[in-house]
């Protein structure tokens, strides 16, 4: 009984960690100035946020089959979220989304077309 309570509390800690990551990256969507920085901020919740929510749900509802499914889900999430955010960043580049002023080195600047076409 004691051990089960500890594991359940640990699961809650992981769930709140994941939710905190998602809320922080939602705040980051507002505070960060351009598309690439926003995609970086969403990357934290895509990797760590979802992974720790799934891990917390696993700890709160543990069984052997659930362990297998959760491990596959976490691996799939890590692989596919990288592909998704890379596709979004590349679409932004093809679409001439300019980096913000604060970007101090930009070695792709010469390949962009005129900046105000969308």
């Amino acid at each position, binding site marked *: 009984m004691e051990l089960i309570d500890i594991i359940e509390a640990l699961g809650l800690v992981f769930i709140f960690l994941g939710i905190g990551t*998602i809320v922080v*990256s*939602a705040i980051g969507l*507002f505070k960060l100035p351009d598309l690439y920085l926003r995609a970086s901020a969403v990357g934290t919740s895509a990797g760590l946020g979802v992974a720790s929510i*799934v891990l917390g749900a696993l700890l709160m509802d543990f069984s052997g089959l659930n362990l297998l*499914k959760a491990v596959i889900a976490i691996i799939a999430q890590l692989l596919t979220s990288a*592909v998704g955010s890379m596709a979004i960043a590349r*679409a932004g580049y*093809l679409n001439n989304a300019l980096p913000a002023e604060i970007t101090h080195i930009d070695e792709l600047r010469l390949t962009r077309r005129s900046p105000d076409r969308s």
Partner: protein
Amino acid sequence: MISEWTLEVALFLLAIGMIIASVRGFLGPRTMDRAVAADLIFFATIGFVALIGLRTGIDALFDIILIATLLGFMAALSMARLGSGGRR
């Protein structure tokens, strides 16, 4: 269950995150900003499903999570395709 109300607090926090992200989706000056916001809303939805599944104790919870994480990037890919006008 020690965690009746903690799960509700978690759902509430997650809803706040989704609302913030959807405001960025409405404001977002360009298509790709909206796509990033929609991506974040999708990840929050996975969290929502997990929490509601824990709350009601359904059996198929991890199957749903597995399908969602396997197919979630298709949304991001198609939005990227939409934003870049078909160019890859």
